[in-house]
């Protein structure tokens, strides 16, 4: 990269890092892995910035993050987040309390597989349609739907207090 491209890249990173970091945090589950994921994506973007800066570099960074998140190599090299022990008994969180709800969902999110987590983030955080999610994840629309259903089922299994809000007074299923 020449001097002008370096400057453009710095401006791009400074402007878009907060938004990209939020997405990386949701995908990775913790701050450290999120920084690692975003840095890898930005490294690849920097290598090709001269050719993509006129199109949409942010879309390129996001695409790299999504693909990197579900790549087998990354799963092989990084530390797994899946628990080895069953979750300890704890008082059921009060869904009416925002903090508890966020903690419960955060834990539930970490229990998901990388694919399931990516689908949830793309569908409900990025608000992307199923077709676009399928293109970004390089899979079919059917796969996106099945992964979404599995993620939601796992959510309910891990955090049953996140039941349907319409049903009130029902017992928490364990």
């Amino acid at each position, binding site marked *: 990269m020449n001097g002008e491209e370096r400057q453009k890249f710095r401006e791009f990173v400074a402007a878009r890092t907060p938004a990209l970091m939020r997405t990386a945090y949701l995908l990775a589950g913790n701050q450290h892995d999120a920084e690692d994921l975003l840095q890898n994506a930005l490294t690849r973007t920097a290598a090709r910035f001269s050719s993509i800066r006129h199109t949409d570099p942010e879309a390129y960074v996001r695409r790299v993050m999504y693909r990197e998140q579900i790549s087998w190599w990354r799963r092989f090299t990084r530390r797994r987040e899946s628990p080895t022990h069953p979750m300890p008994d704890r008082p059921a969180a009060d869904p009416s309390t925002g903090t508890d709800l*966020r903690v419960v*969902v955060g834990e539930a999110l970490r229990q998901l597989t990388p694919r399931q987590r990516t689908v949830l983030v793309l569908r409900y955080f990025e*608000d992307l349609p199923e077709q676009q999610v399928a293109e970004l994840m390089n899979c079919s629309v059917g796969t996106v739907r099945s992964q979404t259903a599995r993620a939601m089922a796992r959510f309910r299994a891990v955090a049953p207090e996140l039941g349907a809000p319409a049903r009130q007074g029902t017992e928490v299923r364990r």
Partner: protein
Amino acid sequence: MSEETIRAILRDIAEEAVPVDLTDKAMSGAVRRRAILLGTGAAAVVALALGVTPLALASINPPQNGAPARPTSASTGPGPSTSPAPSQSWPGPGQSQPAPGQSFRAPGPSTSPVPTAGHSEQAPGPSTSPVPTAGHSEQAPGPSTSPVPIPGHSEKAH
């Protein structure tokens, strides 16, 4: 669990992320990545060249199987390139044939009208002798074969 609930929760969780300036790390990583790719590519090219070059050379310079073998002094049978000395090629009256195992040496200075190359063990050229050679099928007379055996002529070529 409604989709709107999930969206709201995900937005709340995402707010926990702390933005970090990764510009310098990304650019230095890009430089390192490019260097690694170039080095890997160069190594692959060198490895390919080292693997292909011997095969290419072998195909250009095939082994020379057509060249006639040089007979050794211990050869028992007369080879195709053996050039018998003219004085002993045709056992004339009173002359004994060479014992098996003995090689014939080419004569010295050529007495034939055809100039010779000189070495005794070289492949014989076309016969210049008017004497029929049917009796000696395995021995091709050398270029220095004399039509008339010269008694008492030295056998040594040099």
